[in-house]
């Protein structure tokens, strides 16, 4: 699945955040790198349908199944890992599949602790598990490895590479080694057209 972004513009209170951004996201991992305040989050929000652009078009996502690891974990703190997965999967939740996915990321389905009591790294891995547990066509990974130690970062990279193979993935990160780990195509030239406010 290919996502075509053409001449995307967005302003907040007269301050331009995105000015004529054009990008093509093809199957595989595309890594978006820009300075803080460079409009990455705004672009991600537009792609996920959480914001309307002022101008320009996004094509290819009309009927796509989306999934995302947000910059913040956005977990249901009262619920345990199974509860968080069940929340998005509903009747499609399968305990065996959930246990396998969590184990790949170094988490235990049997741990009945609410997500609110998890460490930062565990929360991040659960957020990643949630994103990878649903069937998707387009996956957004916004700083997915924040707070992970080296071992868990490697686990997460392996898990993403396995479960998102052949899918269109947008990776947002400051760290070039994240992009290298996922063999991502780093978007460079187009980024010069994303202007900081």
């Amino acid at each position, binding site marked *: 699945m290919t996502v075509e972004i053409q001449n995307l513009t967005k302003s907040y209170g007269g301050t331009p955040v995105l000015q004529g951004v054009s990008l093509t996201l093809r199957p595989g991992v595309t890594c978006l790198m820009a300075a803080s305040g460079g409009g990455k989050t705004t672009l991600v929000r537009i792609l996920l349908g*959480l914001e309307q652009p002022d101008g320009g078009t996004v094509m290819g996502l009309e009927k796509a199944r989306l999934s995302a690891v947000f910059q913040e974990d*956005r977990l*249901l703190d009262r*619920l345990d890992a199974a*509860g968080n997965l069940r929340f*998005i999967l509903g009747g499609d939740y399968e305990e065996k599949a959930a246990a396998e996915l969590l184990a790949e990321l170094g988490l235990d389905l049997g741990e009945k602790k609410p997500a609110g009591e998890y460490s930062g790294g565990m929360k991040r891995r659960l957020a990643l598990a949630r994103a990878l547990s649903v069937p998707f066509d387009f996956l957004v990974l916004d700083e997915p490895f924040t707070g992970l130690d080296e071992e868990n970062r490697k686990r997460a990279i392996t898990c993403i590479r396995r479960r998102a193979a052949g899918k269109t993935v947008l990776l947002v990160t400051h760290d070039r080694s994240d992009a290298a780990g996922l063999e991502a195509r780093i978007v460079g030239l187009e980024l010069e057209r994303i202007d900081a406010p």
Partner: protein
Amino acid sequence: MISTSARKPQKKRTGDRRLFDGGPRPAQKGGARVWAVAFWLGLWQLGALALGQRLLLPSPAEVLVCLVRLAVTADFWHSVGWSAARILGGFLTACALAVVLAALAARFRPVRELLAPLVTAVKAVPVVSFIILALVWLPSRHLSWFISALMVFPTVYLNLLEGVDRTDRALLEMAWVFRVPLSRRLRDIYLPQVLPWFRSACSLGLGLCWKSGVAAEVIGLPPMSVGERLYTAKIYLETPELFAWTVSIVAVSAVFERLVLCLLDRLSARGEKS
């Protein structure tokens, strides 16, 4: 060799260092402390002794005796039951209406704008104006139900709306991206975040419905109601009975508040377990 620093006597931590004392103490759970209640009862007893006029201020003991005398009669329980059914009926009606309208107002801005002047007016207009007006429209037996509902509605409606407004947007966005159906969003995002607001509104509303409901009964005088019994006690200058009925209203109100809040807490705990 043992280092000299290891042999140095340790200073007591409290001697040389200021320690945080915990700041202002939070209120004790479970209402007033026994000593505080005893203090005010003692003061009441002293006041009654000093005044020496049962007609103006009966002593706590006299009120207690009167309350016991009333509590063994069937009429007392009939009056309490009659009033409780109507007043709590009004409370439940207000809650049901507030839930539906708050949900609509949270979803549709015009509904919120439409209801805003009405809610402000109900909050601002004195309850007695509504009671007199409602007496023109309704038979007196429905008065306490209507007035209780009217007085409780704004509190529950506004609290629910506030709860919905303060629901974590980040979680709602997450649910939207993953196309989580409304039923699950309601159960796992809205309900846990709105329930504390609803609980607080219920706590306020239960006190309010008894105050306004009994006031309506005192004015409307529906037969066999607690309000009518209060009014009769006043007419016959039966001050201990007046006090006894007031105590019984406070007690019944407190019992129902505990019951409703306990029910909501259980609901909340069940939601957390599931």
